[in-house]
């Protein structure tokens, strides 16, 4: 499901080696930037919820184009960075008022 602004979004990342085996024990950080410089990024550490699967809970501050960046260190000390364009994030629909 595409992310929406000003509401909780769960970002899940799966890390695998070249043979497809999950890579656990990495220290990953999740950053979300707007494509326009000067806007506050959303940053959080990713938590390993199962071997090779890491999760972050973020709250995007504004509608618009975003870039998600996952970076960190693998157990063997190598640094990794992976980015993904997330265009046209829209504001979350307000909940319907109670009848």
């Amino acid at each position, binding site marked *: 499901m595409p992310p929406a602004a000003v509401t909780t979004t769960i970002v899940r990342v799966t890390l695998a080696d070249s043979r497809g085996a999950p890579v656990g024990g990495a220290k990953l950080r999740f950053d979300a*930037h707007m494509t*326009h410089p000067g806007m506050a990024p959303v940053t959080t550490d990713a938590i390993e919820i199962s071997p090779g699967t890491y999760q972050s809970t973020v709250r995007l501050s504004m509608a618009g184009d975003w870039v998600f960046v996952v970076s960190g260190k693998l157990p063997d000390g190598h640094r990794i960075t992976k980015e993904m364009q997330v265009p046209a994030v829209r504001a979350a629909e307000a909940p319907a008022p109670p009848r």
Partner: protein
Amino acid sequence: MDVLRLPVVGPLVRWRYFRRVLQAVLLVVTVAVVAHGLFGPQIAPRNLATVATSIHWRGLLVIGLVAIGNIFCTACPMMLVRDGARRLVSPRFTWPRALRRKWLGLTLLVVVLFSYELFDIWDRPVATAAIVLGYFALALVIDLLFKRASFCKYVCPIGQFNFIASTLAPTEIAPRNRQVCQQCRTYDCIKGQRSPTEPLRVVRRGCELALFVPGKTGNLDCTLCLDCVQACPHDNVALVTRVAGAELLDTNRRSGIGRLADRLDIAVLAVIFTFAALINAFVMTRPAFELERRLAITLHLTSGAAILALMFACALIVLPAMLLGSAAATARLLSDRRAPDTGTIAARFALALIPFGLGVWLAHYGFHLLTGILTIVPVAQSAVIDLVGWPAWGEPAWTWMGMPPGLVYPIQLGLTLLGASGSAALAYAISAREYPRRTVPAVIPWLIVVALLAVLAVWIIGQPMAMRGLGTA
């Protein structure tokens, strides 16, 4: 007060290599910006090219203009490169007489502002780096072909912006003692200082922008290069403090410019400067995206360029023509039947809009600077990692930002209203000069124009910002 006589600051600014040091610093920054733009991560908020230019350079440029003067032209690194290249290649031509007005420069200013929006330059580090390189190349080609500072005076769009804004700067270059100038027979401030042993060799350059200090008024066309300060053998050139904007009321002929009343191009540049401030801020807001969407539907337009061009045409041609035309026509009716034609009145009062325009530029660029001033730290840390492969300056502190937008909003409001007040005062002063007996009736239409523009600006800066991707999605 003469800034050049102040302790510490005076000797520093008069130091022969003062400008060179400033230029060298900016050249190093430019090299870093271009290198990171070309080879660094193509994520705008993580790249020096986009962060340093969109956040810091733009903001510091407008603040520098009102706090000091045209200091970014002083420190322009392009002129450092050009001066180096001119040691190898001497220009042979003089700038064509037909182009010795601001039309080319102001057209390029509009092209730059339009392209910035159309191609989303702020989120393209490679494009930003390419533009910087292209700008250097253009300056080099023009100034290696044409003598003096042809690029600065007639072409550079940033320079034209700076010239107009610097009419509100608190300082200007002026003769310290006019009697000394009257007795001078060498005119080194414009011709350059010659070697006593080789009279054909210029050892200190004179003004390359054709501003003769004794006849110079104000900051128009002055790049604050300080060449005249260095060249004057009588140490008679000062950097004096003054009343910002007063030069716009001066009707006398001025060196290198002529009479302001005869310079329609400068009046149009003032109008573009003012209304571009509004459209430049407006296109970042949510209502702008909604307007784009409606225009696309109503006019069956599928081209984003056509829609943006339409919005720019409305903002820079239709709206100014309507507002200034109707104000000038009304002022003519209310003042004096012998008053000049409507176009002439509009051109004279157009200069009064500059303070408002500068207020909006300050509010807009100041917002980005203040809310993102610390972003240069993590971006520089990240650039060092990109360069050396390990966090020599520490892990990037991506949460370093700046002031919360809510705190900046009152500052924006204050700057906008201060600019509008300045425009109102200037309009009154122009009216008093043009119509001494009908000052108040003649100024009323202009006060209404300033008030309408101020309301529009306050509405724009109060809008929620919306980033790209919403207009066509």
